[in-house]
């Protein structure tokens, strides 16, 4: 009888942060256990204590170099509450929204074209030296050029609204510190038609890939789950900046709806497991075993009632059409969902650019000081919660963050196990292509392990293979 084995993939590549996958094979070569481990810890929630409230929206961006705007805005929304502001001046809210749509657009474009495209174009098991962005660019240079220019457009929106492309200062407690000049607005408007055309092409590309690989998409780490996101207050439309919480179970039935997000602790619990620095949230009423849920672009497509921009709404309808009345549970559908959201962002950016409120001068509101504040936003990777308490000296005394990748922790681990069982069980030899299938499943979530563990840096992934006695049989470090 053969010895049981353990496979370890470390670091995972084309994701952000550091992660490790371990796979235990039993004596018959069947997958016994597969886990995604988060191996870094920084303790940002401790680090932020003692900081002054007005600093927080700027400092929290240190969590992340790739979607700092999400942290900037979630923290600013929390600080709005602390300074007693429940409603921003229209110019402030619209400038923040413009910033956020630019952020989501550029983040999704980078992930789809530069991080996921090598797998989608060349196949999950293609030789490793082909699965990179440079090979994509050699074969599809126009695609690569568009991706860079779309991302550049989103980055420039961020710069115009936040002051800088990375770690800007635009959102302040109670408002915004700038408006948009007509000259800058006209510069964006001159390019918006092109952006919309390219976004439509990107949706078509993702749709065609999904439909032409239907068997793969429907079986690759596709399993039912609950989903949660913000939805717009009242009508339940997609709203990436603000709204109330909605959670649906795998059949589409409501778990909770239009819940004020300041009550998130009433419905969510963060569980801890000894082998990972990343927590495991679940829905309190359902319990730790089955109360896990997923967030992100595909989750949003499932939870919202509709999208309030016509082109993206039509694209969402098509995305969900194959699933009848049910939800879409195929994680590879996230790529299509991201492109639908890019199109939505472009439509919303156009709408905002035509709004004269962006040139308004009433930038900040004031109110009666409060002790605590909670800000929630739909970041590119999913729901993001910032929760602070501040003392009478304006210093932070408490901070709790639940980032998108943490919400998705259980889903990520189940995806790893699902693919490991299908790819590795009973195989006499473990190939690099097989292991990449596991990374593809992780990448579909576009996880930011840096944010999830509140650690700085890149996130290469490591995979290790162990025997039943705990001996390391094989390891792969994919940091390049």
């Amino acid at each position: 009888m053969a010895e049981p084995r353990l496979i370890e993939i470390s670091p995972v590549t084309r994701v952000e942060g550091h992660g490790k996958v371990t796979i235990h094979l039993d004596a018959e070569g069947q997958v016994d256990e597969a886990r995604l481990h988060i191996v870094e810890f920084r303790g940002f929630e401790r680090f932020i204590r003692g900081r002054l409230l007005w600093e927080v929206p700027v400092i929290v961006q240190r969590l992340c170099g790739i979607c700092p705007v999400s942290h900037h805005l979630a923290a600013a929304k929390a600080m709005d509450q602390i300074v007693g502001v429940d409603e921003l001046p229209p110019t402030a809210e619209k400038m923040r929204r413009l910033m956020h749509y630019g952020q989501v657009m550029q983040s999704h474009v980078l992930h789809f074209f530069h991080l996921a495209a090598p797998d989608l174009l060349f196949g999950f098991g293609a030789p490793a030296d082909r699965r990179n962005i440079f090979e994509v660019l050699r074969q599809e240079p126009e695609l690569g050029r568009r991706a860079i220019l779309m991302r550049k457009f989103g980055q420039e929106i961020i710069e115009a609204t936040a002051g800088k492309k990375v770690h800007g200062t635009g959102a302040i407690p109670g408002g915004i510190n700038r408006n948009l000049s007509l000259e800058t607005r006209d510069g964006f408007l001159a390019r918006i038609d092109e952006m919309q055309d390219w976004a439509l092409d990107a949706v078509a590309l993702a749709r065609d890939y999904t439909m032409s690989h239907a068997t793969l998409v429907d079986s690759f780490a596709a399993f039912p789950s609950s989903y949660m996101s913000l939805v717009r207050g009242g009508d339940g439309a997609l709203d990436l900046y603000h709204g109330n919480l909605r959670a649906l179970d795998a059949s589409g039935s409501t778990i909770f709806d239009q819940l004020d997000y300041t009550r998130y602790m009433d419905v969510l619990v963060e569980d801890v497991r000894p082998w990972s620095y990343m927590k495991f949230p679940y829905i309190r009423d359902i319990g730790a075993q089955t109360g896990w849920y997923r967030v992100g672009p595909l989750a949003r497509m499932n939870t919202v009632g509709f999208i309030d921009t016509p082109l993206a709404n039509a694209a969402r309808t098509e995305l969900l059409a194959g699933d009848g009345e049910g939800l879409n549970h195929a994680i590879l559908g996230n790529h299509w969902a991201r492109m639908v959201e890019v199109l939505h962002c472009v439509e919303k950016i156009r709408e905002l650019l035509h709004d004269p409120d962006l040139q308004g001068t009433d930038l900040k509101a004031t109110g009666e000081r409060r002790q605590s504040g909670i800000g929630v936003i739909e970041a590119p990777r999913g729901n993001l919660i910032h929760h602070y308490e501040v003392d009478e000296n304006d210093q932070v005394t408490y901070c709790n963050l639940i980032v998108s990748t943490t919400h998705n922790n259980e889903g990520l681990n189940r995806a790893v196990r699902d693919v490991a069982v299908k790819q590795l069980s009973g195989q006499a030899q473990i190939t690099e292509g097989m292991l990449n299938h596991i990374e593809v499943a992780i990448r579909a979530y576009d996880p930011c392990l840096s944010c999830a563990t509140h650690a700085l840096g890149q996130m290469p992934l490591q995979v290790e293979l162990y025997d039943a006695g705990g001996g390391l049989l094989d390891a792969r470090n994919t940091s390049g």
Partner: protein
Amino acid sequence: MLLIGYGNPGRGDDGLGQALAARIEAACLPGVQVLADYQLTVDHAPPVAAADRVVFADALMKSDAPFEFDPVTARDTGDLTSHSLRPGAVLSLAETLFGATPRAWVLGITGTGFGEVKEGLSPDALGNLDRAEGFIRKWIVNTA
């Protein structure tokens, strides 16, 4: 000519690249465009493609010299494993996407304090920054 200074000023001496960029920008040298960022990304391919010469200024770890200045060429070997790129990869993108092949160099400025989450350069790093700034300003003038 384009100078890109990059690194994280929130991690001590990792901010050396951005610190040099700030000094060169403040000097308003004719014909010199300056960019500062946290990391190199695909976004830098278009400005790199538009330049005839590019200097990538970054913090350098574990060197006995105050700074090092070496040519760099386009290459793919720095795979896009995350969201950040190496200088050779940015040059490769500029060549592949825009057909541009600017001459390029990496200016690595030696730092000593990278571990803590804090802003500000160490005394050693500040001294090395002074020497690197002096060198690159002469180099810009002499090679214009």
